[in-house]
């Protein structure tokens, strides 16, 4: 039988040690506040 378990070795290693949802919301709101308060004037692309 083919070694099925090998497939997710990378996935099981790619597990964050913190809550990505909470961190994403916190960072987004922090940047939104900094942009709204004109601390950050412009972000280009």
């Amino acid at each position, binding site marked *: 039988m083919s070694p099925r378990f090998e497939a997710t070795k990378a996935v099981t290693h790619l597990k*964050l040690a913190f809550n990505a949802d909470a961190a*994403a919301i916190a960072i987004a709101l922090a940047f939104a506040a900094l942009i709204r308060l004109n601390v950050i004037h412009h*972000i280009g692309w």
Partner: protein
Amino acid sequence: MPTPTAAPASRPRQLLALLPGTLLLFGIGLAGKLLESLGYTLRARHIYFPHIEYVLWAIILGLLISNVFTVPEIFRPGVATYELWLKLGIVLVGAKFVLGDVLHIGGMSLVLVFIELALSLTVMTFLGKFFGLPPKLTSLLAIGSSICGVTAIMAAQGAIEPDEEDTSTAIAAILTLGALALFTFPAIGHALHMGQQSYGIWTGLAVDNTAEATVTGALYGDVAGRYAVLAKTARSAFIGFVVLGYAIYWASQGKAAIVKNKPLFLWQKFPKFILGFVAISILATVGFFTAGQLTSLSNLSKWAFLPAFAGVGLRTQLRDLVNQGWRPILVGVLGEIFIALLTLGMVFAVYHHGGMQ
């Protein structure tokens, strides 16, 4: 004699461990953007250079690094942060949608998602039985392909208590199918001359993983990428209900624990980043930001997606295509073809007969 266990790393050390992989993600993403710019410059001077956008460059570079070389262990914790950058990008995309759009298109997507879920769960269950897959592997493949890929499978893992091997097989199959979608969906979209909005909604409804759905949308254009995120977000909102349904079923068969507190279960499985997306959208709708500030937030979203795209390439192992056995991948492929055709039909019905753009 007891085996000594390693002490857990301190918080600053954990954060420091994220640095190499995070830098690798941003480095690959930036390299992709630079290669796109280099292409414009060289082609303007009539020097041949492939016409490839930064999204695809980031994925190609990630794929090359992870499949030609072995990513050293020191980079692995940081590479996992691609999930954070993806969610940050999605939350910030909320700035490009006024709440009316979110309610209108998101609401329409919810109806389409409901139909897609009901039919795809039924078809995947049938296919799993037809090809003789273990029942819980069938459940995992059905959950993964009908809602949101690996996240849904991981959410279901604790609820329906499958074998570890079934979980890993289902994840590998879903990741493989996501990789295939990256290259097939844009080609189909162009062949059918789909609009940015209809293509974006289609990919959001059909592609399993949030990361792959976002990339598949972005490969077609910025607008398509945003609508893919919106439709995918609506789809992800169902995750708790579907996993709860399967948990109740397997508990009734005596093969999983009974869910005692269902509202708490639904809240625990709900993807919270959706709340951030809605919050930013509300702030944009009530005029909290100027037009220039909204542009900055939208650009910040693109910067956040850049390392996430690199992460999609880095985590895709092409050798897994041949390592997982033919039956799960065949069930997955057949199921995905059904879901892609079903959602394509629904999108065409809405956008061509429903009078939308």
